């Protein structure tokens, strides 16, 4: 019985290690003003370079683990956001980037805006800011990844409180 757990622990440990170290990312703009989008792109360029964390920008939802959403969901984009989320294979995560994605931001209450990504799909990490700095985005992604670690390690990771990861 015990070495069977050991074997499962090793495999789980390996799986989590791999998931933490190679989070493939896909970006979807649900009606944002492009401010957050260019900051996401800035994290991939030489100065911030998320590739050193293993983050790679993927085109197809099938290849991606983390869905970076920006913008307060417009009615037109609502259905497509839901469909993209369904196309992504499991262990998938959603990161809402920017005040619009977190709560609708300045456009709260407009007639064509749903206000916030969590109105449409469940969200794992919120990164507030208008737009959040590339450092904040990186911090959010890293905290999201470290929240994958088994629960007991969670306590040591500074700054993560409770279930929702807030960068």
């Amino acid at each position, binding site marked *: 019985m015990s070495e069977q757990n050991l074997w499962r622990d090793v495999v789980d440990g*390996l*799986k989590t*290690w*791999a*998931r933490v*170290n*190679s989070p*493939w990312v896909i970006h979807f703009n649900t009606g944002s003003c492009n401010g957050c989008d260019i900051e996401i792109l800035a994290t991939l*360029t*030489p100065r911030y*370079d998320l*590739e*050193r964390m*293993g983050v*790679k920008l*993927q*085109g*197809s939802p*099938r*290849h991606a*683990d983390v869905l970076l959403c920006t913008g307060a969901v417009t009615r037109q984009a609502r259905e497509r956001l839901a469909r993209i989320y369904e*196309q992504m*294979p*499991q*262990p998938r995560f959603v990161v809402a980037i920017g005040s619009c994605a977190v709560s609708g931001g300045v456009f709260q209450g407009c007639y064509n805006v749903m206000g916030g990504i969590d109105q449409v799909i469940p969200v794992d990490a919120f990164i507030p800011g208008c737009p959040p700095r590339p450092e904040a985005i990186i911090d959010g992604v890293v905290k999201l990844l470290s929240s994958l670690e088994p629960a007991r390690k969670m306590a040591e990771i500074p700054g993560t409180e409770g279930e929702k990861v807030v960068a």
Partner: protein
Amino acid sequence: MNTISTLVSMLIFPGGLFLVLAGLFYQWFDRKLLAVLQNRIGPRWFQPLADTIKLLAKEEVIPNGVNPYLFIGLPLVALAGALTAALYVPVAGVAPSYGFSGDLVVVLYLLSLLTLCMGLAGANSLDRFSLVGATRTLTQLFSYEAPFLLALLGPALVAGSWQVGKITTYAVNHWLILTQPIGFIVALIGLMGKLEMPPFDAPEAHTEIVAGALTEYSGRGLAIFDLGRAVELIVGLTLVSSFYLGGVASLPWFIAKTLALLFVMIGLQSLLTRLRIDQTIGLWWRYGTLLVLVQWFFMAFA
């Protein structure tokens, strides 16, 4: 006794495991150097390994409107094709484990089997992007295949045999890059076409057709396809460097020469814009084949 040694050589040393790990290492080297050339920091050394393990641990989504057997089978055939091609090629400085006269053509056929599988994988699904990716992969396959084969036949003619083993032994003592420079250039660019490196990466143009033929693949299928491509990278590099760069006598020589060749390719990769698919075809059929024939002309009369 020798069954165990052949098993070990087949599975562990110059065979499967070494090839896969070396392929992953070369992929890391490729991504890292490209990043450094774009003065980024680039991925950590274990990145391709982590990517592969993560993909193997992901859920496998089989979309509807797709023939499931083909969907699961194609990546396996692709990886198998690449691995068997490695049997005939002097990987890691060790003489090729099998060889018969005319196995150069078999190696090239097995390598294009991988590209064929990717084309089929793309055509197998209803997703627009994979269909376009499939047509592009196959169009590009037909365009670089002929000049690449001709460029590799140059050394074969000089060495007087079509067996990879004999050609490499011949090539060890005379550096064919000096006597056949044009042939070397066409072979190098042909290899970049075969590996779909940037100037020729129209089949999986990141910004246009999302992920080309493999848009629908996730989890295991994608991981196996990537492994196949990693092995193809190793086999292609050893083939060109053993023919033109004076053979691969021993492991350190093998690593030095293949990395040098990879370095040149990465340099080219970071300099050139992606060619539209019709431009690549024009480039190959107009200039590639012509150059090789000129090379042969010199070889025949010089």
